[in-house]
């Protein structure tokens, strides 16, 4: 009996070779290289849609899409992958589904939820490039730090109604490369801080201003992000970190070589290439490290008590991340006054970690410490 070739095999090969026929005519373009690329796109909004579409049409082999948000009607003016009947669906799931329709050869995975709940530092290290398409500084800073620890190249995108900003941070090339936070103006941190009360509890009444954008700027940002991801794969035109600003009215653009900031809040405290150690979330400090200082990726609530002596059940609050709560925590549910003291900490000694968390899960993304002046990242996993 003659051996039959599995249908999916010949189907995929023939269709794939035909699909990429024009790419194969480009002398500097290797479809195999592109197909081998692993890219994470954080945020499947306006820029995310364009970036995912471009990477898919280019035939990038693996694309992971992260977004917690759902599609709203007003998103449709800037979202090539969404339709009116998609309103209410998760953006990552919908974008991934549409991308798979564009090219079934591309492995597109959707992660519905906050990227931090799905992506560890170790997972970030498995990508060639992480492309940041979010809409707030806080997520950019967190993602940049994760890529810095992972040694993964980071592309930042930002837009308004007229301009496009693209930042390329080739963090895989060593510790001399500036990170996203290098040179960030102090007003950015002041803006982030305004969302929180003292101690990283969110302000319940805070509302973020929406920045108006159009498909013109988001399409250019998505094209530039994909182009830089490709350029990195082939020519590597930019040896260091660069920031590009494009004015879509005048078509002026500037390309700036970024300088490493010795006082940077993101990378100045990182010594050497960080050693990332995937670790169970349950705290167990190695003997001999009781006096070492550990810095948590997140502020942690360690105590919560009413100054007026009211008896409170705080078991659902203590030893959780501060950003899970808002400033209503200061109001005592018993005496109804603003009398609750909340202890929130970022740093712990090894002995304190054991004291607070012995046998319990540590709720942050990672813990940083130094061993012989070298940064070590305990990447916490469930």
């Amino acid at each position: 009996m003659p051996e039959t070739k599995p249908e999916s095999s010949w189907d995929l090969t023939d269709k794939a070779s035909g699909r990429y026929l024009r790419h194969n005519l480009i002398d500097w373009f290797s479809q195999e290289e592109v197909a081998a690329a692993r890219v994470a796109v954080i945020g499947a909004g306006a820029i995310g849609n364009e970036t995912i579409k471009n990477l898919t049409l280019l035939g990038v082999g693996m694309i992971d899409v992260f977004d917690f948000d759902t599609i709203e009607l007003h998103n449709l003016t800037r979202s090539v992958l969404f339709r009116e009947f998609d309103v209410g669906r998760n953006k990552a799931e919908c974008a991934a589904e549409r991308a798979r329709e564009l090219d079934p050869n591309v492995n597109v995975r959707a992660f519905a939820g906050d990227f931090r709940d799905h992506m560890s530092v170790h997972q970030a290290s498995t990508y060639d490039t992480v492309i940041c398409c979010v809409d707030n500084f806080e997520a950019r800073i967190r993602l940049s730090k994760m890529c810095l620890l992972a040694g993964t190249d980071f592309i930042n995108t930002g837009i308004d109604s007229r301009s496009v900003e693209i930042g390329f941070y080739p963090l895989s090339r060593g510790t001399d490369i500036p990170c996203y936070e290098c040179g960030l103006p102090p007003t950015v941190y002041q803006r982030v801080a305004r969302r929180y009360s003292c101690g990283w509890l969110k302000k319940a009444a805070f509302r973020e201003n929406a920045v108006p954008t159009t498909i013109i700027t988001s399409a250019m940002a998505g094209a530039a992000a994909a182009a830089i991801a490709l350029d990195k794969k082939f020519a590597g035109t930019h040896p260091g970190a660069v920031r590009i600003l494009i004015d879509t009215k005048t078509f002026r653009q500037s390309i700036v070589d970024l300088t490493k900031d010795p006082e940077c809040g993101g990378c100045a405290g990182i010594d050497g290439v960080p050693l990332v150690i995937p670790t169970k979330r349950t705290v167990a400090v190695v003997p001999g490290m009781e006096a070492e200082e550990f810095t948590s990726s997140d502020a942690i609530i360690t105590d919560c008590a009413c100054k007026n002596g009211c008896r409170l059940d705080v078991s659902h609050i203590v030893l959780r991340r501060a950003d899970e709560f808002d400033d209503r925590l200061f109001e005592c549910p018993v005496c109804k006054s603003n009398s609750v003291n909340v202890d929130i900490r970022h740093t712990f000694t090894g002995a304190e970690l054991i004291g607070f968390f012995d046998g319990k899960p540590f709720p942050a993304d990672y813990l940083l410490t130094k061993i012989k002046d070298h940064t070590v990242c305990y990447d916490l996993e469930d």
Partner: protein
Amino acid sequence: MDMVIIILRTADQARKAELTLQRSNTGADVIQAAVDNWNLPIDTDYSLINAGSGKNILPTQRLLDDVVKDGDVLEIQPVLVAGGM
């Protein structure tokens, strides 16, 4: 010399001015002066670049000889935050 004369402009080149600055001034001082004097939107964050050298000037960086020379053009650029929806 502890003074330097530069041209400062916005990224859209709608505003331009000649400024005499002290070498001890920082990048953040220049940005603040532009925001104050040109009434730039305060809900936007800005960075400063040297358009001639193509390098950014850090907020804490002083305008020393190796950073800025007389006649250099410095540009105030917005740090863009939108991207999602």
